[in-house]
Every structure is written in C-alpha cells, then in structure tokens.
C-alpha cells in the first residue's frame, strides 16, 4: 500500500523528534543484542504466520483466475485475452519485483526474514513499513537499527507495523462494499462519468507520485528522467517493430536502466 506518503525519511524526521518518554527499561545495547533480536525475529511461529499470508494470497489468486475464466467469454474477453493479460501482468512485474527483492534484502538485518516477507514484500511496501517501524521505535526512545534497538523494541515496531497494515486491510474490507454500491448507482446514472473517473484517478495518482520524487535530490530527478526516457524509447521501438513483447518487458528494462544510472550518479 503505501505510497501516498512522501517517503520514509521525510515521514520519520517529521514525526520522530517530540517522542514520548524514553523506554521504561529498554535494555542497553549489548554485544549479543543483535543475535538475540534476530533469533526472536526468525522464530518458527513468526515464519508460520508469514507463510500463512503467502498461502492466503495463492488461494485468492487461484479462485480469482477461475472466476475470470468463467465470466470472460460472456463479457467479450476470450481465453487468449485472459492469458495475455495474465502474462503481461507477470512480465511487467519482473522488474519491480526484483527491485522490491533488493530492498527487502537490505532490510533483513533490521526485521528478520519472516517480518520482511510479510510486511515489506507483501501487504505494505518498504516506504510505509519502514516509516511505521521508525515512528514506533521512536516512541520507545530508540532509533531503527541504532542505539536501543533490541528485541523488545523490534517487537514493538513489528506490532505497530502490523496494526497499521491491519487498519489498511480493515478500511478496504469496510469501504469496498460501500464503494461498490455507490459505483453501481453512478454507472447506471452516468456511464460517461465512469469512463472518465478511472483514467483521471490513474493519471492523477502517477503524476503526483512521480512529481513528489523530483525535489528530493538531483539523483532522484536524474533517475526519474532516465526511467521515463528508457520507457519512451521502448514504446517507440515497440510500435516501430510491432513488438508486443517489448511493451511488456519495457518496465523491467526501464527500472534496471534507471537504477544503473542512479548507481553511477550516486558513486560520482
């Protein structure tokens, strides 16, 4: 979820300073503090819960695909189109997935494997979850991965992230049926409106998310431009060559090229 907030660092600096009283009896950081934290974070029950979330999503994916196959022909969506959409979605997500993997690996030392899988990999995203963890850690008078970040503070951060993510899911569970009823009414009353609103929402969301990145630093700006430029090139080339596969791989190429540019700019 996530991405409506400006980003982890901004969120943190804005919220952390006036922290409530320091942790009552947070153990001082000890030499074995880190191993202690990771052994707690990697405990079997936490692993089971994380894998359970994976299982729930796999079940959902299976049910949804079967339902789509059943209805497809009746609304003018052939088997070929359904498979095409599935494949396009799969290919388009390879680039972003690898990027998420890199970020998730970077956070393993902070949260342990199962919490990273469940919170950063699924449900949330790196931005919001790290921000939530940072805020929660701050209320205990510690900093994320720094002084005072022991097993207890990790547990506090973990439960705060999970409650926050839970509220998102709760809002989705409560709001979706309401919105569905409203959408149906709107669709029958004004079909032209329903054709414009999704496009407007999509364009508005991505314009704002992209523009938010620009003022963060020169490298952010260069990265946005590189990413957009490679995409323009790929799309033009795909049109010229009539290459549908290139349209689907374009996002992956753009993400990798843009990260390479960011890497060079960062090193310079």
């Amino acid at each position, binding site marked *: 979820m996530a991405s*409506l907030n400006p980003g982890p660092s901004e969120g943190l600096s804005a919220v952390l300073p006036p922290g409530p009283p320091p942790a009552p009896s*947070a153990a001082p950081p000890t030499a074995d503090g880190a191993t202690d934290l990771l052994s707690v974070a990697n405990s079997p*029950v936490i692993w089971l819960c994380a894998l359970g979330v994976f299982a729930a999503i796999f079940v959902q994916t299976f*049910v949804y695909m079967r339902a*789509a196959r059943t209805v497809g022909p009746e*609304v*003018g969506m052939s088997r070929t189109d359904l498979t095409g*959409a599935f494949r*396009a*979605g*799969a290919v388009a997500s390879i680039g*972003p997935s690898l*990027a*998420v993997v890199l970020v998730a*690996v970077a*956070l*393993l030392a902070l949260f342990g*494997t199962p*919490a990273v*899988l469940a919170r950063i*990999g*699924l*449900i949330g995203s790196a931005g919001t979850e790290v921000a*939530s963890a940072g*805020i*929660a850690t701050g209320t205990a008078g510690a900093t994320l991965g720094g002084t005072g970040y022991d097993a207890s503070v990790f547990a506090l951060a973990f439960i705060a992230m999970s409650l926050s993510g*839970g509220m998102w*899911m*709760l809002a989705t*569970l409560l*709001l*979706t*049926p309401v*919105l*569905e009823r409203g959408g149906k009414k709107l669709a029958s009353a004004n079909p*032209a409106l*329903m054709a414009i609103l*999704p496009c407007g*929402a*999509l*364009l*508005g969301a*991505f314009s704002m*998310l992209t*523009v*938010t*990145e620009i*003022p963060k630093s020169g*490298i*952010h700006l260069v990265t*946005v431009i590189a*990413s957009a430029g490679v*995409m*323009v090139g790929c799309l033009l080339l*795909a049109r010229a060559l009539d290459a*549908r596969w290139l349209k689907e791989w*374009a*996002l992956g190429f753009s993400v990798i090229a843009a990260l390479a540019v*960011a890497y060079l700019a*960062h090193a310079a």
Partner: protein
Amino acid sequence: MTTETSQRADAGMAAFVSTTSRWGRITMTTALLLSLAGPVHLVAFTGVEVGGAQIWIAFAAVAATFGVIWVLEPLTYYPILGPAAMYQAFMIGNISNKLLPAAIVAQDSVNAAPGTRRGDLAAVMAICGAAVVHLTSLLVFVGLLGNWLLSILPAELIEVARLYILPAVLGAVLVQCVATMRRPRPTVIAVVAALLIQFALIPVLPGLAMYATALCVATTMALSWFLRDRRPPGEALQEGDTDPVPSDPHTQPAKEGR
C-alpha cells in the same frame, strides 16, 4: 449487441463480482488475522518486554501519521482497481510500484479500457500474474536466499536500490500510463495539478504533503470531468466495454473516446 447477450454479460459479471468479493473478503480476513498473530505471539509468549501502554503509544504515533491514509488510499485506488482487485491489491501491497503498472500494461496489451468490464478483468488477471511472479521471487530470493544474497551483493547496490526504487519505477510508469490512456486532456490536467501541488501548494502548507496523492487524484478526476471534450457523446466511451478485440492493437493507435 443484443439485449440477450447484454443480460447474460450482466449476470455473468454479477456472479464474478459475488465470487471474488466473497473469497476476497475471506482470504483478506485470514491474512489480516495471520499478520497480527505473529507480533501478538512475540509480545505475549516470548521474553520481550513490551507493555500494553507502550503499544498504544506506538500505535497512536503511527495512526497520527497514517490514519487518514488508511481510509484515503482505498478510496483513491477504488476507481482504478474495481471491487474484485481491491481485495488483491491491499493484501499483496506494493500497489503503485507494481500492481497498477502491471494492470496498465495488461489493459494496453489486450486493448481494454480501464473502468470497463474487460478492463476490470484484464486488471484482475494482470494482478494474478504479478502476484505469482512476486510471491515466487520473494520466497526464493528473500525467503530462501536472502541472507546469502545480503552477504554477496555489494552494500552500495542495495543502498542505491533502497534509495531510488521509487523514482526508478515511477518515471517509466507515468510514461506508460500516459501512452496507454491516450487522453491528452486528463494527462495535461494531471501533470499540471501535480506540479502546482508540489511546487506551489506544499511549500505554503507543508502539512498537505501526506495527502498530496489523494488531493491530486480528486482534482484530476473533477477537472477531467468538467473540462471534458464534449464533442463525442457518451456512447463513444462505452464501446470498449463490449467491442470485440481488434486482432492487433498496435496497428491502430486511436482508441475510444477520441
């Protein structure tokens, strides 16, 4: 199309929505409970020292930051995702940097307009495809190989990915989104609104930064409607719902609503 096929399509779609809503809610509730069970177990049954008061303070601090977003984000993405995909998206996460891009690419690939039935189905299938790739890559590269990767990947590379993942994904996605929609007016409105919000409004009212996306979405939707091209009447816009798919979408740049 005839009334009969239209009725069959209506009934079929109603069955699809009821199946996906029921299972969407069941699986999402399961994931919600499981995701809370882990940390609750940690706090209740292991030696960590976390008190109830501490949890409430931490939760209040997080709620102060994200409380409005909890409600705003589902509202923001609903018109794009449709009811079925809502339950997928908010469970899989990474909506803006992964699921929406996948849905856009897929809708473009099979030439289905967002907000139509074909568009909704294409989005659902795309998110299924994205979910399979995402879950598999997470299980393999983070679950199984994560600690090994952490030891061999250069720290700088991981740092760069962490810092610049959003701009690296979003620049390309915005271009793809504009190219797929082929709606010049809403595109200009969206970009101008985003620039004004970022560089004119937020410097004056920094508190709005948290709600910038929701604000931009609402502004773009409203202005796209009031400033719409009124020449082609509404029916031109609905065609995407029922039209048979052209065999090769790439050879015909013009889409409905132009």
